[in-house]
């Protein structure tokens, strides 16, 4: 794993959708810190986080998961400036990586998740679900790289991305990247981008819900997928609320 000696540019695959101006404002020091998390064999570790604020923010996490271990990361990214959460995870034999992420917000901010999942040993599984809800000229990105080592047979890796654009100027990008050297491997990825369902909005209005309430309910249903695997209800509520409160600032 390489330490960055110079600032990344758009030519770097993992930074191609990044807000490079914001990265420059952060400088090398602002993007070079990694948090290390080790999940011992057979154990489960869960990390829940709300990322993003008024200033650019890059959070980088490096995880190694021992044989049969389980790493879970759930995140809401709702800052007002460039926000990047990057996760590199290396899975031992039969280990599992679960990621659920939501990016949400307007303005002109870029909010992105960048994951690199290394299936280094056989029988490991990974499941990543990202939901992006944006308006204004904001962008939500999910760059998910999957690496499967030559002997990592029976790897099962899934990525699912859905974008919901509340206004025409917003965008959502999913970039799955697969590097597979084993042959008995399942890698599934899906990506769709859409708008709020107009028929549902009218149906909800006809039952008495204001446009804001209808939108909140529809967005809640949309982003809920990212946190279905999060079993701790209190954490789930927190992440959902952090996302939904973002809608309140929107007209």
């Amino acid at each position, binding site marked *: 794993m390489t330490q960055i000696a110079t600032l990344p540019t758009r030519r770097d695959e993992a930074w191609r959708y990044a807000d490079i101006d914001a990265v420059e404002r952060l400088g090398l020091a602002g993007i070079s810190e990694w948090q290390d998390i080790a999940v011992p064999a057979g154990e489960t570790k869960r990390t829940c986080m709300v990322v993003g604020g008024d200033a650019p923010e890059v959070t980088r996490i490096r995880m190694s998961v021992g044989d049969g271990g389980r790493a879970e990361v759930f995140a809401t990214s709702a800052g007002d400036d460039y926000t990047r959460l990057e996760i590199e995870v290396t899975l031992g034999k039969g280990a599992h990586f679960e990621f659920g992420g939501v990016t949400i917000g307007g303005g002109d901010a870029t909010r992105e998740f960048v994951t690199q999942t290394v299936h280094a040993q056989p029988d490991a599984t990974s499941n990543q679900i990202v939901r992006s809800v944006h308006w204004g000229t904001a962008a939500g990105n999910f760059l998910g790289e999957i690496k499967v080592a030559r002997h990592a047979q029976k790897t099962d890796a899934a990525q699912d991305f859905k974008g919901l654009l509340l206004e025409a100027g917003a965008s959502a990008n999913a970039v799955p990247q697969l590097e597979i050297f084993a042959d008995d491997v399942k890698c599934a990825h899906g990506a769709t981008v859409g708008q709020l369902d107009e*028929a549902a909005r*009218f149906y909800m209005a*006809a039952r008495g*819900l204001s446009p804001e309430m209808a939108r909140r309910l529809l967005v809640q249903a949309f982003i*809920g997928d990212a946190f279905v695997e999060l079993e701790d209800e209190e954490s789930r509520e927190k992440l959902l609320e952090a996302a939904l409160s973002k809608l309140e600032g929107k007209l």
Partner: protein
Amino acid sequence: MELKQMLKITDLHATVGEADPKPILKGLSLEVQAGEVHAIMGPNGAGKSTLANVLGGKPGYDVTSGSVEFMGQDLFDLDPHERAATGLFLGFQYPVEIPGVSNVQFLREALNAQRKFRGEEPLSGGEFLKLAKEKAALLKMDMEMLKRQVNVGFSGGEKKRAEMVQMGILDPKFAVLDETDSGLDIDALRIVGEGINSIMRAPDKGVLLITHYQRLLDVVKPDKVSILADGRIVQTGGPELALRLEDEGYDAVMA
């Protein structure tokens, strides 16, 4: 008894479609008094659903002239959700699926939004569930269905029955029911018809009942029957008009 007017539609003209507006309602006039069930029948494409959608305020429909007075107010001064809170219920010909939102959550939020608009206290979770159970039982719908996502995976008949459960919970003053009988078998039709009677048959309520079939009218006995053809009401009569339509068809009756 003095009749109290609930809905008064006067010379209503409306178009559908944004890019290339197509005139559908062409001078429609109609009145419904409190305590009345007024059936609307008419050939396919006559504009029955358009009328329902215009009354509900569906985007994409433009009122080009005419007026609608609803419970003493100009209907078009109200946004769709305000119309609902004022007492208008639109039963959809094709109820919409809302993945990820349960019926219970949807209806509780909708009911409390309406109550708030009217300056009433919200119902607690417990009070709401009690009400929902009672109305589900009235329509012989399993309460488990109400815990599922709105209309997702419901059969056509279940969707129509769920519409009536929604109507029971929201307890509107006035219902516009668009082909609520389509897609129902005989037993479900009776349950739905009796549901309409028990929820909406009251001296201070009214119903505009859009239907193709006499069999619903056998259960929900209408006070008046109108024929809508080519965007206008062309004939109004009593229940016997529906029977004549059933026997002779639109062409003969309208001739």
